């Protein structure tokens, strides 16, 4: 049990040290080859782990169907689609005519429909967030009104020069905020990686932090 938790920590530490060594020290072509080889190992291990997700999916829905849980018909449909598509994919290949037909005419269309829901959700989210509740919400509302008018041709007709205000909001306060968040997130990600490499952060192996 102890080894089961320690082994991933050791693998992460050794891999990270090797990657940093080959990145920071100029080993010429040898270094590039080693990094490329490590990248391939990473892809191979990911493919093995990739199977675990679909296995869970099938196990869960098979249980729903066999135990006749509520809405088991949905689970049966999921299983049928999974099995049919797996067979088509295996027989027809990833670029086969039938595979591409299913992807282009079913999967992408459904994805597009879900994505299109964004239009409705933007309206309902805007309605709630643009209420004049406090100072922050007021600033948000004013910025949104200026930006919307700045982007629409009629805005310049109603308030001459508003496009410049919109441009200023985007390029000064908006850019400053975005850069600040990016900078903080990048350094935060960096520090989080160091915690993982040093084994201080070990919740991902199913343990408490800094044991």
């Amino acid at each position, binding site marked *: 049990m102890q080894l089961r938790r320690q082994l991933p920590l050791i693998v992460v530490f050794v891999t990270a040290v090797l990657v940093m060594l080959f990145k920071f020290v100029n080993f010429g072509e040898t270094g590039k080859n080693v990094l490329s080889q490590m990248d391939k190992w990473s892809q191979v291990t990911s493919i093995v782990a990739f199977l675990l997700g679909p296995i869970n999916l099938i196990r869960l829905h098979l249980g729903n169907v066999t135990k006749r849980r509520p809405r088991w018909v949905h689970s049966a449909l999921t299983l049928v689609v999974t099995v049919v598509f797996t067979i088509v994919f295996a027989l027809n290949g990833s670029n086969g005519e039938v595979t591409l037909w299913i992807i282009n005419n079913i999967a992408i269309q459904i994805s597009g429909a879900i994505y299109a829901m964004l239009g409705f959700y933007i309206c309902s989210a805007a309605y709630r967030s643009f209420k004049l509740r406090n100072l922050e919400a007021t600033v948000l509302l004013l910025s949104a009104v200026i930006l919307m008018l700045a982007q629409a041709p009629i805005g310049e007709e109603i308030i001459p020069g508003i496009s410049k205000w919109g441009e200023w909001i985007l390029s000064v306060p908006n850019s400053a905020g975005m850069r600040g968040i*990016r900078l903080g997130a990048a350094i935060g990600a960096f520090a989080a990686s160091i915690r993982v490499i040093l084994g201080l952060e070990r919740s991902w192996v199913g343990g408490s932090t800094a044991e």
Partner: protein
Amino acid sequence: MVLAGQAPAKGILFFAPEMFWDFVLVALLFILVYVMIRRANAGLPIPRIRKIAGLEAIDEAIGRATEMGRPVHFTPGMSGFGPETYAALATLSYVAKTAAQYDTRLIVTNRQPTVHPVTSEIVRQAYLEAGRPDAFNQDDVRYLSDWQFGYTSAVLGIFRREKPAANLMFGYWMAEALILGEAGAEAGCIQVGANTNVFQIHFFIVTCDYTLIGEEQFAASAYLSKEPMLTGTVVAQDMVKILIGLLVLAGSVWATVAGNADKLVKFLSQ
């Protein structure tokens, strides 16, 4: 150590010149983390982390779900293993332990098949540590789909059918951020969202009750565990941020006085 211009084309054991500033940053952060760990081990005081409302709200969200007798939904985000996902997994560990202690049902949904077994193990371990291994339900830690909107529609279905009282969205989010946030709000969930994607954070801000912006998410493990050693690493990260902030300020002053800061940019770009 050989710097730019001096490095031989086919050398070995010479510093890769294009990585100089990256190396300085990594080394600085490692040194600061080491110093903070030493301070923590010696029992010396470590600066406190400011109050992060989004992380404080996790207990409130689980408590609300417990009172209502409804489940908590947790997701570690859309990306594979990366800093955001590790931060989300640290939060999941805390959420799972709290849910196990309160005897509240926890539903974890995954988009990445590689992350799924890890979340499953974290939740199982949390129930074990809470002394309730029998309460762990394997079927509540689910892999849904690695297709972005396939995953999104499956989560929308869970919101409709299983009506969670709390929705905790950590990790990295893209175009589905608004769809999930708004659907969670419509379902009446108390929501905590975390994201580092600057193009999507605002969607969480308008739809979630609490939002962790950018780096706040990375402080989760230290904040929730209150472990001095981890807090030290957050302090080290803030020190580097202050240093970079000072550099930005110096560049701004330089550019204002001299008309441009080309020399500084060139120096840092070498």
